[in-house]
């Protein structure tokens, strides 16, 4: 992920950022990597500290709640079903959005979606760094 960032910086410095097809393909393939990194971080901390839940003081087995194994199993199953449904729908909508290429003269709001400060506000398609400055005033 760091390498991808450096690669794009290199492209920016040489002013070829917008012509580096390989970089875009790599960025696309790297898409799920943020998620993988988050999960890897969790596995490292949670597996790494076993058998303690408070390192050196309290063992995981001592701190377990008096909840039956079937209850924990059932809730785990329910979480898996719900997460797959919700994430599945989310990824479906995301991929559908990505499959529509942007075009010139696109309206600010892509659908009847609500607007908000940190939402999807498509900036004008920029060809070069020079255009960025001229467009700055018109951008919201």
């Amino acid at each position: 992920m760091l390498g991808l960032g450096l690669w794009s910086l290199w492209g920016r410095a040489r002013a070829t950022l917008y012509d580096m097809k390989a970089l875009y393909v790599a960025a696309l393939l790297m898409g799920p990597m943020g998620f993988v990194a988050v999960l890897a971080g969790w596995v490292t901390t949670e597996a790494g500290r076993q058998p303690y839940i408070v390192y050196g003081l309290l063992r995981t087995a001592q701190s377990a709640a008096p909840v039956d194994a079937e209850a924990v199993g059932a809730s785990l199953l329910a979480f898996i079903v719900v997460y797959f449904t919700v994430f599945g729908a989310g990824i479906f909508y995301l991929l559908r959005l990505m499959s529509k290429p942007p075009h010139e003269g696109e309206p600010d709001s892509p659908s009847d979606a609500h607007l908000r400060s940190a939402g999807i506000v498509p900036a004008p398609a920029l060809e070069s760094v020079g255009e960025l400055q001229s467009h700055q005033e018109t951008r919201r």
Partner: protein
Amino acid sequence: MLGGGGLFAVFPLAYAVIMPALYAPIIVMLLALVFRGVAFEFRWRTIRGKFLWDWAFALGSLAATFAQGIALGTIVQGIPVADRAYAGGWWNWLTLFSLFTGVALVVGYALLGTTWLILKTENELQARSYRLALLLGPAMLVIIGLVSLWTPFLEPLYMERWFTWPRMLYTVPVPLLVAGAAFVLIRGLLRREERTPFPAALALFVLSYIGIGISFYPYIVPPTLTISDAAAPDESLAFLLIGAVVLVPIIIAYTGYAYWVFRGKVGTEGYH
């Protein structure tokens, strides 16, 4: 959410006992809230599937409320505790009483919702809200009455709290105020008033929670753990108090400001 977090911080022992007792209803509530929350984001992204997310919102709200009501009923009916830990199974919450309190909360939230719509909408939707509220209001009052009569028989402690002299002098105002709020609610609905039904419904909720407080005091997990049994060490409480003194007024202020910004009728524009 704030209740769970606050319980963990301020009454860790109560948290440790209540959470395993309520494991199933709380998991259901969390999963239902996932659908409720995500429905808002997804329903804009699809035309064909919009109705699915509308249903996800409605059923998510219904399930979360029902589970919350069951959770409340489970605490009221008493949680078995042995050696400072929960001593029941994972189906203990399922009783006729807890199912009834689940239904009760659904009716109560629906009443709050319809009276809120009366306040915020016009024309057709408002007329529909009046009709619904005129069904839900009396239903809510009957339910409050039934739960109030049922509760003292669950636990001798509650009976003593409500029906011993001279303690009754302190408890009698609660049912009297409930009768007052009920009167304002029903009269407001019949007269098609816009501003009185919602505060009256809110008052019914506040009074019901005060009623629970009267039944419980000084217990937090009836009939075994008292508030002082379950409280965190003084140092932790002092630390939390500073945080609460700063944060709670800020939360109240920005919530109040948000309601102020969106005051008045919704109109046809709508907002997210």
